[in-house]
């Protein structure tokens, strides 16, 4: 800038060719190439997400993965909830991740599901603490978490999989991060409960996915009904019918209505999803049917 009448011309970023900057771009391109190469062996990438927390995403993910593996498919499950990982425990995967020739190997969980989770890396009971300056933590942590998700996808020897299930943390922006990294997944399961509060929040995720052009989006109503253990009659668990209303309003297909069953939580706490431990129960049947829907669009 000058005080005179003529302003000197400074070339813009795009007008300047700079091999130095290109080396940075080249590193990003190389990251993307590795990611693409690794995911080339994955038949279907299925994300399980929700704008709302506490609706049972991880239990749905664990059961879908286990049901698919039990049917003879090669299945991987990635716990993308880096700060609150639970998928490894739910699938009964223990220990760490062993080093392979081209990355880390997934741990084996129920029915042979290959599992990767931060839980398999941090010490038992230890919280995930990200290293870095306290100042502006929100800014750099978000970048690092996205980078960590990229590494969990590209630096793991997933091998040839029929389905890779990604259990995302709550929040619509987590879906956006995933799409930034890998493009549109083959399918996204949006998990909700029939409550109005959940419907309100999850509707935003549905809208986002529609805007992002994700072609296969299935709505999963968790804890939809409760069955009397004595007479077997199923009753709605919530007064509201938010999931069906959401399906109606958004045009999303309701892929499953999973009845409430205390054994879902009890069995996943033991590392044995209900689709394996009690496949005859209505909740297990609903989850197994959902898994088939996920695998065969």
């Amino acid at each position, binding site marked *: 800038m000058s005080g005179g009448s003529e302003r*000197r011309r*400074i*070339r813009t*970023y795009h007008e*300047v*060719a*700079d091999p*130095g*900057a290109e*080396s*940075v771009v*080249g*590193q*990003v391109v190389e*990251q993307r190439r590795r990611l693409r190469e690794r995911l080339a062996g994955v038949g279907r990438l299925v994300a399980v997400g929700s704008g709302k927390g506490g609706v049972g995403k991880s239990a749905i993910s664990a059961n879908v993965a286990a049901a698919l593996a039990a049917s003879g498919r090669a299945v991987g499950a990635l716990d993308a909830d880096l700060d609150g990982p639970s998928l490894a425990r739910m699938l009964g995967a223990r220990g*760490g*991740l*062993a*080093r392979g020739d*081209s*990355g*880390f190997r997934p741990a084996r969980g129920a029915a042979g599901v290959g599992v990767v989770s*931060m839980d398999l*890396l*941090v*010490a038992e009971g*230890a919280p*995930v*603490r*990200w*290293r*870095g*300056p306290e*100042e*502006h933590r929100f*800014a*750099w942590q978000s*970048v*690092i978490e*996205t*980078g*960590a998700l*990229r*590494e*969990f996808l590209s*630096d*793991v020897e997933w091998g040839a999989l029929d389905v890779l299930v990604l259990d995302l943390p709550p929040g619509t922006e987590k879906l956006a991060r995933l799409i930034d990294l890998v493009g549109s997944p083959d399918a996204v399961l949006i998990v909700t409960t029939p409550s109005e509060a959940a419907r309100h929040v999850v509707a935003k995720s549905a809208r986002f996915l529609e805007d992002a052009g994700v072609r296969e989006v299935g709505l999963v109503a968790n804890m939809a009904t409760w069955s009397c253990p004595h007479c077997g009659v199923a009753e709605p668990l919530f007064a509201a019918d938010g999931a069906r209303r959401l399906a109606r309003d958004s045009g999303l297909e309701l892929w499953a209505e999973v009845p409430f069953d205390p054994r879902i939580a009890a069995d996943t706490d033991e590392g044995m999803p209900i689709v394996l431990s009690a496949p005859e129960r209505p909740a297990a049947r609903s989850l197994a049917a959902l898994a088939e829907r996920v695998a065969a669009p």
Partner: protein
Amino acid sequence: MKFLCIGCDAVMDYVERRLPGDGTMAVVYACPACGKETAMLANPMETRLVSGLGIEVGGRSVPPEPLELVRSSVEGLEERAEGVAEAAPPRPGGVRWSEDARERLMAVPSFVRGMVKRIYGEYAAERGIEEITPEIMDRARSELGLEGM
């Protein structure tokens, strides 16, 4: 990010990157026409942002290791991941660290320690060095331009 010498209208060349050890970063650029140098100084947050992208300004000196970012970014993970790695078959070119070299490594900020350790390890492995000592670290630092590590 690109650096332009306005007087010469020339793109400045990357010269070196320095990590002084306090979480900040300095990257030096020079004009190929007039030789004028300038340093870009990044604060700890900016430095962390760059490392979070998994890239190195000026280009990578060594290829990335699997889960490099994860292992260097979560407290306690580097040590645990090393335990896992030790349980695996030894990798070709594995090197030992002398006690005083380990002590010096611990002075490096924890969130970049994993990366620094890997760089020294690969430097030694490539040259057939069996044990990393402070002298080896000095030599590597000088040859690789790793001042501050």
